[in-house]
C-alpha cells in the first residue's frame, strides 16, 4: 500500500503495513520492550517473592499466583490479538496482519502451556490433585490445542497466501473459546475458584499481592510484544527474501548484468 502523497507519512496507518517499512520500526522497538519486560519482571518478582506476606489460607504456596495468573491472562489476550490481526488480514488483505497473527501464536502456545503447568503445580498441594476435568481447566486445555492447531495448519500449507487465509479463519473461529474460559467459573460449578479481580467486586487481594501480580502481568505483556516483533521480523525476512531491500539489507552484492 502506498502512503498518501499529501500529509505527513507517519499519519498514514498503512505506511507501516508494508513489511519493508515495518521491519526497521520493529527492530527499533524490540530493545525498548525487552528492557521494559526485564525491569517490570524484576520489580514484580521482588515484590511478590521477597516483600509480599504469606496468604492466610495457603501460606507461601500461593506465590505461584505471580506466575500462573500473568501466563493465563497472556494466553487468552494473545489469542484475542491473533483473532484481531486475522480479521484485519481477511478484510484489508494486508500480508503483515497475517504475519503478526503467526508471530503471536508460538508465544501464546507457550503461555497456555505455562499456565497449565504452573496450575498443575499449584493444584497438587492446595486442591490435592494435578488435574481435574472441570470447565475452567478443560477450556484452557482447549485453548492450548487451538494454538497448536493454528501453528500446525499455517506451517503445513506451503503457499503463503493460502496458509494466511486458512490460519485466519481458524483463529477467528477459536476466539469464542476465550470468553468461555473467562466466564467458566461463573457459568458452571468448578473446582477452580472465581476471579480475584472482577468488574463487580473489584479485587479480593491484599494490595501488595495485587500490585506484584499486576507488575508481573505487565512484564508478560512486554515480553510477548518483544518476542512477537522479533518473530515477525524473521517471517518478513523469510517471505521477502527475494526482494531488493532484503538483499541490500544483508549486503548481498547485486547480480551484475
Amino acid at each position, binding site marked *: 500500500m502506498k502512503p498518501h502523497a499529501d500529509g505527513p507519512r507517519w499519519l498514514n496507518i498503512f505506511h507501516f503495513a508494508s513489511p519493508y517499512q515495518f521491519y526497521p520500526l520493529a527492530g527499533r522497538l524490540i530493545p525498548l520492550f525487552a528492557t521494559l519486560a526485564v525491569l517490570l519482571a524484576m520489580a514484580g518478582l521482588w515484590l511478590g517473592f521477597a516483600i509480599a506476606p504469606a496468604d492466610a489460607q495457603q501460606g507461601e504456596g500461593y506465590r505461584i499466583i505471580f506466575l500462573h495468573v500473568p501466563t493465563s491472562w497472556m494466553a487468552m489476550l494473545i489469542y484475542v490479538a491473533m483473532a484481531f490481526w486475522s480479521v484485519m488480514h481477511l478484510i484489508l488483505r494486508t500480508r503483515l496482519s497475517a504475519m503478526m497473527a503467526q508471530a503471536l501464536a508460538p508465544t501464546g502456545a507457550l503461555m497456555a502451556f505455562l499456565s497449565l503447568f504452573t496450575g498443575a503445580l499449584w493444584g497438587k498441594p492446595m486442591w490435592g490433585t494435578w488435574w481435574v476435568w472441570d470447565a475452567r481447566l478443560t477450556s484452557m486445555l482447549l485453548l492450548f490445542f487451538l494454538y497448536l492447531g493454528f501453528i500446525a495448519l499455517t506451517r503445513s500449507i506451503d503457499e503463503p497466501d493460502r496458509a494466511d487465509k486458512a490460519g485466519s479463519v481458524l483463529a477467528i473461529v477459536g476466539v469464542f473459546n476465550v470468553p468461555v474460559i473467562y466466564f467458566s467459573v461463573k457459568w458452571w460449578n468448578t*473446582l477452580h475458584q472465581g476471579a480475584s479481580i472482577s468488574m463487580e467486586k473489584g479485587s479480593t487481594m491484599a494490595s501488595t499481592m495485587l500490585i506484584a501480580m499486576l507488575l508481573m502481568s505487565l512484564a508478560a505483556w512486554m515480553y510477548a510484544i518483544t518476542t512477537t516483533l522479533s518473530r515477525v521480523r524473521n517471517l518478513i525476512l523469510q517471505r521477502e527474501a527475494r526482494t531488493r531491500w532484503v538483499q541490500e539489507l544483508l549486503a548481498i552484492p547485486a547480480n551484475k548484468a
Partner: protein
Amino acid sequence: MTPRRKRAAWIIGALIALSLVTFFIVNAFRQNLVFFYSPTQIIAGEAPKNSAFRVGGMVAENSLARAADGVTMQFIITDTAQNIPVQYRGILPDLFKEGKGVVAQGRWENGTFIASEVLAKHDENYMPPEAQEAVNQAHQAAAKNLAASQASQHNKEQQ
C-alpha cells in the same frame, strides 16, 4: 460497496453467526456439564444413582472424626440447607479444613457418601494472616452485636 466493505460485512456476519452458535452450545452445556452436585441436589435425588459422581460444599464445623477402625475419616458436607455424611480412607489435602470448601468424588450408598478422592476448594480471597484474623474478629463482633440487639429487643417485647 467496495470489495473491502463487502469482505468486512461478510466477516461481521460470520462473527455474529459464530457467536450465536457458541451461545447455544454453551447454553446446552450449562445444564449438562456438572462438575459436582450440591447436598440439596443429592437429597432431591438429582445425582446419578448407580455411578460415581462428585459432591461439593463446605465441611461442617465440628464434624470431622476418625471412625472406630482408626483409618476411615468421617465428616459432613453441607450447603447449609442439607447435610451429606461422608466416609473417606486416604490422605486429606493441606487445605482441607472444617468450614472450608471441599469437593469429594465417590458413590452414594445407603445414605452415606463413600468417597474415593477428596479435593479442597479454596476461595478467591488472598490476604495476609493478620488481615484474615481482623476479618474473623469483625465477623464475631458483628454476630455478637446482632445477638445482643436481638436479646434487647426480646426484653423490650417482654416489658
